[in-house]
């Protein structure tokens, strides 16, 4: 039995050490918001935070995450909620499939840089592919989330 802490909840699962976290989350625990896109850390659809760091869950074995805090799209954080609101205001998604990963990557960015520049955003978000091509909206929405957050602090 292995114990995983996801979004503050503990899950005991039966799985091999080398199983990538993605499949443990999706097939065993049943949280399907984290997506499979490539299996090679190329597309970012499976992005999660592990102890606050952005990682591709398709390439992280569960042995690595035992005892660490895993955060997925099913979770909630201050930055993620501002981003969600900004995503809604900007009507960002098309098919929506990559957006879990996009939001998680954006959360990791705002967790580290309070007010990212366009270049910061390009650097932080270019590991996430959106085949529908919503990049310009994602970029705008990240700036918007920063604005929402600043107004909220007023």
């Amino acid at each position, binding site marked *: 039995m292995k114990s995983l802490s996801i979004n503050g909840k503990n899950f005991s699962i039966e*799985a*091999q050490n080398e*199983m*990538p976290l*993605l*499949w443990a989350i*999706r*097939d*065993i625990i*049943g*949280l*399907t*918001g*984290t*997506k*499979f*896109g*490539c*299996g*090679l850390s*190329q*597309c970012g*659809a499976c992005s999660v935070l592990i102890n606050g760091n952005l990682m591709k869950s398709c390439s992280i074995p569960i042995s690595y995450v035992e005892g660490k805090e895993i955060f*997925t*799209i*099913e979770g909630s954080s201050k930055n993620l909620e501002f981003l*969600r609101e900004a*995503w*809604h205001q900007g*009507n960002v*998604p*098309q*098919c*929506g*499939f*990559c*957006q*879990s990963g996009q*939001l998680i990557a954006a959360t990791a960015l705002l967790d580290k840089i309070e007010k990212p520049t366009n270049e910061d*955003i*390009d*650097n932080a*978000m*270019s590991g*996430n*592919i*959106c*085949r*529908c*091509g*919503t*990049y*310009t*909206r*994602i*970029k705008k929405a990240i700036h918007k989330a920063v604005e929402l957050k600043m107004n909220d602090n007023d």
Partner: protein
Amino acid sequence: MIMTKIQNLSRRNFVKVFGLATGGIILGCNVSGDKKEFVPSSSDKNSFSPNLFVNINKNGKITLIASRSEMGQGIRTSLASAIADELEADWDYISVEQAVGHEKYGNQNTDGSRSVRTMLEPMRKMGATVKMMLISAASKRWGISSNECVAENHYIRNTKNNEKIFFGDLVEEASKVKIPDTENIKLKEIKDFKYIGKNLKSIDLKDFTNGTAIYGMDKKIPNMKFAAIARCPVTFGSVKSINKSDAKNIKGVDKIIQIDRLVPPTGKFFGMLGGVAVIANNTWAAFQGKLNLDIKWDLGDNKSYNTDSYNQKIKKRLQKNGKLVPGSRGNVATAFKESKDIIEATYHVPHLVHAPMEVPNATAWFKGDSCEVWAPVQDPQTVRSEIAHFFNLALENVTVNVTFLGGGFGRKSKSDFVVEAVALSKEINGPVQVVWTREDDIKHSFYHSTSTQYLKGSLDKEGQVSGWLHRAAFPSIVSSFKPLSDYASGFELGQGFINNPYQIENFRFENAKAEAYVRIGWMRSVIHIHSGFGINSFVDELAAKANKDPLEFHLELLGIDRVIQGKSEHPFNSKRLKNVLKIAAKKSGWGKKLPEGHGLGLAIHYSFYSYVATIVEVSAKNKKIKIENIWTAIDCGLVLNKDNVKNQLEGAAVFGMSIALFGKITAKDGAIEQGNFDDYLMTRMKDTPNIDITIIDNMETAPSGVGEPGVPVIAPAICNAIFSATGQRVRTLPLIDLGLI
């Protein structure tokens, strides 16, 4: 347009047919295929075949059944908004449920950028009918004439005393009202639209941002197995022998099953490739099992396919006359003889693959004499018929549930991955989910055809185009349905080749033979990608030869304003094409002085009855190209949801960039060489420029396509901009192969 009958379904029947708990008014109508007309409904309630339903609950909640698949084009929102507008509904009360695959919904095939084009009017009529029934119910209650009632934001108002009744409170009375006759249905005037033509947000936003939207792979059934399939590297090869021992040793692997190719009957369906399936307790174990299979393949006839030598062969073929295609006119030979200048060019676009973010996948449960599937499919009725055909089931015993599609782009209009799931479920006698790896997706697709085009054009003394010879060769999509279809079909040549929009007196189009060695399918914009690239690039070359500004040259070549009726309800109007070009050019500041190393390029294209122009600005530095700006203008007639159209066009620019910059699928000894996003590259955020979209206000004209028309212009506009910036002509895609990226 004839609507003969809209039928009020009884609650019982509705529940029976659709399994929805409901109450109140439920309306169905029938739409025959793509014809925007209602056809009589059967009086036999059990076989009543409606296309679309409006259900108003007593609590005021309105549920719409969406018959078209949602793959990012926003159709669930668009269809709902058309009904809500005519119904005068409050958007907050609207929700959408996805239809299963069934012919009672009319044509559900979500392709060809036609959902809004074919369904807007039926949807509006559905909304208008319900509104009339609610008004009728209210007028009876008040004892006044219907003319004295108006519907406003989910209420009916008595205009005499301003008393109001909530929609939900009228449900019981309205359900007893006679359905109005077709000729009495009155649609709103454009100026009164509340949602149509405005900016509505996706109705599924929360599910998309919370991770709760259910795509194919998210379907879970208790005790469901997971499957991965090893397929022959060469299309249509077969298994010679398997050593299963290593795969069987993988923890979680349950069974290893060989499945044979299912060959579709000529002219329809897709069949499946066959191979060796690993059945496991989770997706990862299935993937691992598959990697550990030791399979000897009989590679079959397609092992000779090498795209390099194939392309050379086709290029050579294009040096000779091809098959003359109807639509050619005048005499190019004379025009060439009498010309001042002649130029020739050959353009090439490689095979491409859709690579939607969600790989092909399907969940199936075969239960002997019935079968249920859950899958992200664009064409659920074909899936249903195909399952019935291959597994010898009665059609009514096959249920196809359509999930969200994590992108489709044409890949998910093929049912092969669903057929695989059914075949395996039948074998293991239980539910199973087949998931393709990304490598499977890239190596075993229905590829976008590769094309080579030879163009020869002449200019007269005034620098006007006097003759145009166009020879194109590309493996036909028809080859996937009918073996030995080595020439292009009429529908393919009608995608921008033979209906070239320019006014050229001497025009000759020839088609050369091109055999298919892989499965060919349609990908977003289909053959327009080829015609748009070849024609726009060549016009730019002609303009340069004539020493004229490309913008002026294009406008001149489009000729006098003219309307070509054709067979369609959407005649081609050259003025609309000129208009989008002028507007995009103005937006881009065409003619302005650009920074050193920058260049502008333009392209126009008419597809899916929409008119698109794009101007691209590139910069060149150290022999590398950067896309700086994209300005696109579209005239798609009536716009149903402005922000959604904008989003589609922004996405089309990014999709088109992927084609221009990176897209290339190659085969060596019959096997596809690319396998994942590390060698089949995609446009990423860092590559993405400013994208500016202009939507022409043309609400009086019938709506035309939106999802696809923005794509074909991007690659030629980029290449023409590169010429403008550097003097280098790009005639072969992608740019990365030329070292420009």
